[in-house]
């Protein structure tokens, strides 16, 4: 058991190191740092000085080491596009993304799970069939199309909700929140629906299929053979057994939400990390790309490792279909 934990944590470090390597290679060799950071009228001498200052002629390992060390401090250099420290940029944008993800995740959970349970228990009902079809449309519709439709209906035609920006935010130390103002909350509604919708339908389908699997098991049959009430069988037994893999996948989905936020933030011009990343990819602003990569990978590795470790405690026999949680077609 201990061996497993140690191995898993070691694995996590290995992955982070690999990610850091990729990020570093991007950082250093994609585009020319000197070109990108020099001013328009820099002289050859200026460039040589810049080169030395950035340590670009040091051995690879030294540069990599420096990169990793800086990374652990959160220092990823200067953005090519903004000429500002990447760290500051990320810190500004992080609260926006996290708040969005939080609301979307809650929405997905609170709506998706009950609907999934309902469709599992009443598979032939009219409402269930409708939900099944709707959910299929939900995961087939590109997320940005959903966002655009939402904007069309609620912003353009009805003019109820804003379609870009965060509204007014309140500064709480280094965190800015949109929860405390009316306009902030209004601005949150459409983007979080868009972000949460995909996960909600995914969750609903997952709960449904898991629960239907569970309802076919021998222990459910035996429970019925003992004359337990439907409520006991469905909720006491079936639901409890369903929720464990579901909760896990949901936990893994949380990480995915952060990635999908890229799209949502682009559609709604939401000033979060995802939007920053897209702008960076378009501009080939490598420091920001590298920083985002490392940060998001860190979040993922932490989530995945925690889930694996948690499972080692609950039931090592249970495996989780990680691919399905991340939008891979497994």
């Amino acid at each position: 058991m201990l061996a497993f934990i140690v191995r898993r944590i070691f694995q996590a470090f290995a992955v982070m190191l690999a990610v850091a390597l990729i990020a570093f290679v991007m950082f250093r060799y994609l585009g020319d740092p000197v070109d990108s950071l020099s001013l328009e009228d820099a002289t050859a001498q200026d460039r040589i000085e810049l080169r030395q200052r950035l340590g670009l002629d040091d051995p690879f390992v030294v540069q990599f080491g420096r990169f990793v060390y800086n990374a652990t401090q959160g220092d990823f250099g200067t953005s090519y596009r903004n000429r500002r420290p990447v760290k500051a940029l990320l810190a500004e944008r992080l609260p926006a993304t996290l708040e969005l993800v939080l609301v979307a995740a809650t929405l997905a959970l609170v709506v998706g799970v009950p609907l999934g349970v309902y469709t599992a228990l009443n598979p032939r009902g009219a409402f269930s069939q409708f939900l099944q079809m709707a959910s299929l449309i939900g995961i087939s519709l590109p997320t940005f199309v959903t966002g655009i439709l939402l904007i069309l209906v609620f912003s353009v035609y009805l003019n109820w909700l804003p379609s870009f920006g965060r509204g007014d935010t309140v500064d709480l130390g280094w965190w800015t929140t949109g929860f405390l103002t009316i306009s902030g909350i209004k601005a949150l509604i459409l983007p979080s629906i868009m972000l949460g919708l995909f996960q909600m339908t995914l969750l609903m389908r997952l709960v449904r299929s898991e629960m239907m699997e569970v309802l076919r098991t021998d222990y459910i049959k035996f429970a019925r053979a003992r004359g337990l009430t439907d409520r006991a069988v469905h909720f006491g037994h079936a639901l409890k057994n369903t929720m464990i893999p579901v909760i896990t996948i949901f936990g893994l989905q949380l990480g995915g939400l952060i990635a999908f936020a890229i799209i949502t933030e682009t559609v709604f011009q939401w000033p979060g990390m995802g939007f920053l990343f897209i702008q960076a990819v378009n501009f080939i602003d490598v420091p920001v790309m590298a920083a985002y990569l490392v940060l998001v990978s860190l979040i993922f590795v932490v989530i995945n490792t925690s889930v694996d470790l948690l499972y080692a405690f609950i039931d090592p026999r249970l495996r989780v279909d990680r691919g399905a949680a991340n939008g891979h077609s497994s």
Partner: protein
Amino acid sequence: MALLSVHNLRVEFPTRRGILVAVDDVSFEVAEGEVLGVVGESGAGKSLTGAAIIGLLEPPGRIADGRIILDGRRIDDLPYEEMRKIRGNEIGAIFQDPLTSLNPLYTVGEQLVETMLTHLDMTPAQAAKRAVELLAEVGIPAPERRVDHYPHQFSGGMRQRVVIALALCANPRLIIADEPTTALDVSIQAQIIALLKRLCREHGTAVILVTHDMGVIAETADRVAVMYAGRLVEVGEVRQVIKEACHPYTHGLMGSIPVAGHDAERLVQIEGSMPRLTDIPNGCSFHPRCPNVVDRCRAERPELIKRTGGEIACLLFEDEQENA
């Protein structure tokens, strides 16, 4: 009056190739406290008969005809909620695989208490105490400690004992045991069967013991019903059926039991194999494999007729009866 009587039970499965008849005109009775063995090859319809009796036939299978009467009361057409009250409380069931029969997320004690509280009038505290007693009854050592253990902490044999405890905890009058020992080690099988037999005698519980293992039947059952391709071919006292198996199929089954101590004769083998439900022959369903087949057998289907000590469905015996 018999505790359970089954009349002309017919279980069908509508499929796209037509209607499959899995249980065809089966009738038998089970008296209070008796052990009725139901024996036959896999696919003969034994398990489905049991499922129909306890009301757990899975759709699209359904009871197409017949009546099932428990203690004078008809139960095959009861609404779900009424049937639910009977399950566990009057009719219990034990299934084949003890590992998958128990919910891995609940302790053994929790599952026992839940079942008892559903059917019996007790307080949770009383139920908890009874749970420990039940575990002791089925032979689980250190029951007061084990009652808080999870199913995966028990071995296969122990788990099946827990399953038996669960089936008996609400004091049913009848238990349907569907291949209760098939998934267990041979060394454990005998113990479990003995346990089941003892407990049922003590509690006065009748048992329908479904199995393909004639040896188990010989050890445990009072009467035996032999099924073939969904139909009953012979019913009778165990001793008699074993000694003088009359129906050609039963005869073949008995002959195929290796008996220790006997001379090394060749095991009797029945030619061919049981037909699939989609290809049941006309007339007597056994006729393609029967060593005593006559022309009539191919066209006429034998009815189950009474004879001394039991019943048999074979045209040759009908002739005998008539000629007697």
